[in-house]
């Protein structure tokens, strides 16, 4: 059990292994798209881990990257179409970043490092856990950026009007893209640093 919990903290894909950073930061200006993105990545990661693990004995090693890319892009297209149908506004906000799940290094990394050499059920759990570990970082970053940058959470105002009357101001810097990077840096700091280097 313990090895499956690793991605949530000790082996966190974003904070420790520096994987999947690309999309992790761009969608975190608000909480809602971040949660949707986290769920999409979890679904894609779990499903493609499961499928690749089922096929692991039949894929010729020389063409495995192409096979993996095809399986992943199949699930990403599914997720993309579902998002466009069900959550159109969020899908517009995420724009190209849903498509970029295909090249998310977490997914390729888990397929290479885990699914190719493990049975389907552990692969499925591993995929879910890594997706959640990634999602955790997204949600924490998005929480602070939306709270401090817009004074809202999930589009509901949480900073009371009386604060604004007393001179409190939203920190507009938080909404700008570079702040996501700085927040992740601070998260690594708070976590006690990256032990690998």
């Amino acid at each position, binding site marked *: 059990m313990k090895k499956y919990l690793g991605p949530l903290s000790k082996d966190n894909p974003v904070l420790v292994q520096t994987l999947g950073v690309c999309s992790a930061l761009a969608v975190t200006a608000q909480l809602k798209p971040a949660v949707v993105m986290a769920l999409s990545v979890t679904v894609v990661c779990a499903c493609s881990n499961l499928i690749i693990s089922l096929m692991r004995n039949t894929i010729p090693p020389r063409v495995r990257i192409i096979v993996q890319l095809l399986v992943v892009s199949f699930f990403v*297209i599914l997720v993309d179409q579902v998002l466009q149908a069900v959550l159109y506004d969020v899908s517009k906000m995420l724009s190209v970043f849903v*498509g970029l799940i295909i090249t998310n290094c977490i997914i390729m990394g888990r397929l290479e490092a885990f699914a190719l050499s493990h049975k389907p059920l552990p692969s499925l759990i591993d995929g879910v856990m890594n997706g959640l570990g990634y999602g955790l970082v997204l949600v924490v970053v998005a929480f602070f950026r939306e709270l401090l940058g817009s004074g809202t959470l999930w589009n509901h105002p949480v900073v009371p009007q009386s604060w604004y009357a007393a001179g409190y101001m939203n920190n507009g810097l938080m909404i700008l893209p570079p702040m996501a990077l700085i927040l992740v840096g601070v998260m690594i700091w708070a976590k006690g640093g990256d032990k690998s*280097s």
Partner: protein
Amino acid sequence: MSDIFNIFVRSVFIDNMIFAYFLGMCSYLAVSKEVKTAFGLGLAVSFVLAVTVPVNYLMDKYLLQAGALSWLGERFATLDLSFLSLILFIAVIAGIVQLLEMVLERYLPALYMALGIFLPLIAVNCAILGGSLFMQERNFPTVIHSFSYAIGSGLGWLLAIVAFAAIRERLKYSNIPEPLRGNGIAYIITGLLGIGFMAFLGI
């Protein structure tokens, strides 16, 4: 003509792939320990972007968009295959990278050696697929526009990774708080560089 140049400048400085969209961050953080290797990777990314984006532009325009297949005849004029764009783009990118590798090895061995291991790795770099997806989203009027966008984004990426690698080389000699060493400070520096690049917003 001037809008082509505008797209170029915009994609180098304002819509910089790393500082504004965080594309290709994984390799950006992993391969920026030395200026020389960073330059090699930056060159490879620009090169592949400059080839794949125009090709994907043509694919999008003549195969995927709503009504794009009308050149095949009346019956195909109403088809909209744009949901297939993800899978086609990634296939084109993987194919072209493979092809480029073979062509370069045969005809330009010097460049092939310079790009080295980075070329095959690029097929799964988010900056490349991201370039094609942004190209699709922005609806450029001609293939020249998409080419200038690709060159600009590639150069912007090169600029960012070389600047960052140069800072990182100096960083080895500085006294950073223990928990921030390694990736922690790398993120913060990228963030600060990004804030610096925002000064170009006024252009």
